[in-house]
């Protein structure tokens, strides 16, 4: 019976059915792992929802609480500052590396692999690695600085707010620059060589080619890399949790770190959910703005 029903469908109907079948797995996946948790989070955010114990509907009280939470505002500020500081080096370095490994010359794969290698180790592992490299007694950085007499005594890199931020940025750039390099490399290689050749005939120098050919034609790739990088930075957690535990003086508590603390250490799941929803709104707005700025002009 089912077979006859299928056979009776017109070509157009069957085409639609096929399309539906193709997207069903994705729709199911997104529903189970995104839509349902999202609705659940929104629901939780209107409740006093301890990790265990009684739950109570409290309306917008969690959201009102946000404005009074000094650490929440501090964490927002910190997260945006971190994002603003970590994004340019990842991009500039990623672009330089991509330019260096752009052409398919002999052994270039070795360099691409070396630059990409840190990307494939976990952020948790790399954070621990950096903690040891930055250690004041056994760390390699202090060893080098002391051997070259660049510092009078061992430095506690993770012990002061400014240096802690800087060395974490250094470690994250090292860890993620390879990924940006690959994205930008794909963009670079998509530009036909003829464009450069004719520009050279017209007498264009390196920077003219860069600003009038390379960057405009890479717009989509830059947009993708930028969005991924900014979202990753705003959602960062591991490096702060592992390298500084939010210290010193609670100066490196990112927004996700604070959501984690409230939800799982202070057991205020509803409050954590409210913060997550606000963060989601911020991310949607930011991503929309980036897409708008980097859109292809008709």
């Amino acid at each position: 019976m089912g077979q006859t029903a299928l056979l009776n469908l017109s070509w157009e109907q069957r085409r639609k059915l096929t399309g539906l079948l193709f997207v069903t797995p994705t729709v199911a996946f997104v529903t189970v792992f995104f839509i349902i948790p999202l609705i659940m989070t929104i629901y939780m955010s209107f409740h006093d929802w301890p990790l265990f114990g009684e739950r109570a509907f409290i309306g917008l009280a969690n959201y009102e609480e946000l404005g009074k939470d000094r650490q929440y505002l501090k964490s927002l500020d910190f997260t945006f500052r971190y994002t603003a500081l970590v994004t340019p080096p990842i991009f500039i370095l990623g672009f330089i590396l991509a330019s260096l490994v752009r052409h398919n010359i002999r052994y270039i794969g070795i360099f691409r692999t070396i630059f990409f290698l840190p990307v494939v180790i976990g952020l948790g592992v790399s954070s621990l690695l950096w903690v040891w490299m930055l250690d004041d007694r056994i760390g390699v950085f202090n060893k080098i600085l002391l051997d070259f007499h660049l510092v009078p005594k061992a430095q506690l890199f993770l012990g002061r707010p400014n240096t802690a931020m800087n060395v974490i940025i250094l470690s994250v750039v090292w860890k993620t620059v390879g990924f940006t390099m690959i994205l930008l490399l794909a963009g670079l290689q998509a530009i036909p060589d003829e464009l450069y050749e004719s520009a050279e005939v017209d007498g264009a120098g390196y920077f003219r080619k860069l600003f009038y050919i390379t960057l405009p034609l890479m717009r989509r790739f830059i947009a993708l890399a930028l969005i991924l990088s900014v979202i990753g930075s705003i959602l960062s957690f591991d490096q702060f949790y592992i390298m500084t535990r939010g210290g010193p003086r609670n100066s490196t508590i990112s927004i996700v770190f604070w959501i984690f603390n409230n939800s799982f250490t202070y057991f205020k799941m509803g409050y954590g959910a409210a913060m997550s929803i606000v963060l989601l709104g911020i991310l949607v707005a930011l991503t929309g703005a980036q897409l708008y700025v980097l859109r292809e002009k008709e």
Partner: protein
Amino acid sequence: MKIRSFCLGLLAIVLVLGSLPLAAQDDQINMTMWVRAINFQTQELVDTWNANNDSQIELTVIPSAEFVTKMGAAIAAGEPPDIASIDLIYTPAFAAAGQLVDITDFVRELPYADDLTPAHMALGLYEGRNYAVPTAVDGSFMAFNVDLFEQAGLDPDNPPSTWDEVLEAARAVSALGDDIYGYWFSGACAGCNAFTFLPFIWASGGDVLSDDYATATIAEDPLVREALELYNTIWEEGLTPEGASIDNGSNFVSAFTGGNIGMAPLGNFALSLFQNDHPDLNFDIFHIPGKEGGAASFGGGDVIAIPAGTEHAEEAWRFIAWTLTDEPQIEIYAANGQIPVRLALVDNKYFEGDERQSIAASALAVGHTPYTTVYNDLFNDPNGPWLEMLQIAILDGDIDGAIELGQERFTQIMEG
């Protein structure tokens, strides 16, 4: 048809494999036990139990700073351990949330229920019901290096008994050399400093919480400020290694074993560790003093409890009750330098002639243990107000700012 037979075969394999553990399990009880930072006696208790009983216990060590988070997550996920050795300070919070098995009836049947350490029993009590019994007694005190004291011309038989004397001793030891320091504290460890810094305030008659544990008294009690000034002086004069400022507690005990530290406030757990791993360390201990004298200690340690949701509550209690009997209390606790949790057993053959043990035990007599359900949020949380206040006051020297911030954040948390 090939696919069908393949599927049937796969099903058969899955069924056989799935039934194997069941067949092997029989009706043996397997229990899990969680403990924060391992003590010598815990592993030995579990090993001894496993060797002599049908039921088996698997011990998991959870880092102290993450214990509450992990325990909360495990309970919420419906996968709690069967037995938990919990920092006594958290018992009110877990009991209040209904996450521990009420063991009042079990406790009543214990012949030595009245002999168990009072601080632990008090913390294990919630609304008149028992939820935990003691399993590790840990009072804080000051350890000092006898050799360094002698080299510095200090009298090891007459250790410091006021804040000024602590400071003078730290200065004298620090003067011995570039790599020798008078004092150690773990500057990035919240819990360590609740355990060792609060007694300085208590011994002087001050406190950071009101007597009913309902409000914060950081801003109004001048002794809080003066104690912060003491540590700030120790830090600014370089009497402690610079690395102390970023120690998250991993060197809480080990720093002192290096032999270049004059004094370090520690607790009983360190005594058994030194005795087992560093028999050559020439150290002695004294009570943490008040400003003008007196003494205080943090009455700390672990209680043992049965998390709600376990299927093996009876067997878990059988293990717990056994740990309180004479044999393990003497042959496992005392033999490892750990104070028995039954007061009548503190005088035992292993402690005879070791004055350090009697000082450590007497620290319990001056012990304080705050009773509050938000203890973790206030004191032990690495991002909590306690550590932030200490760091701003001691390391940055901004004592006014630190006190203001501490008072505000404490109040915020205590008001919920």
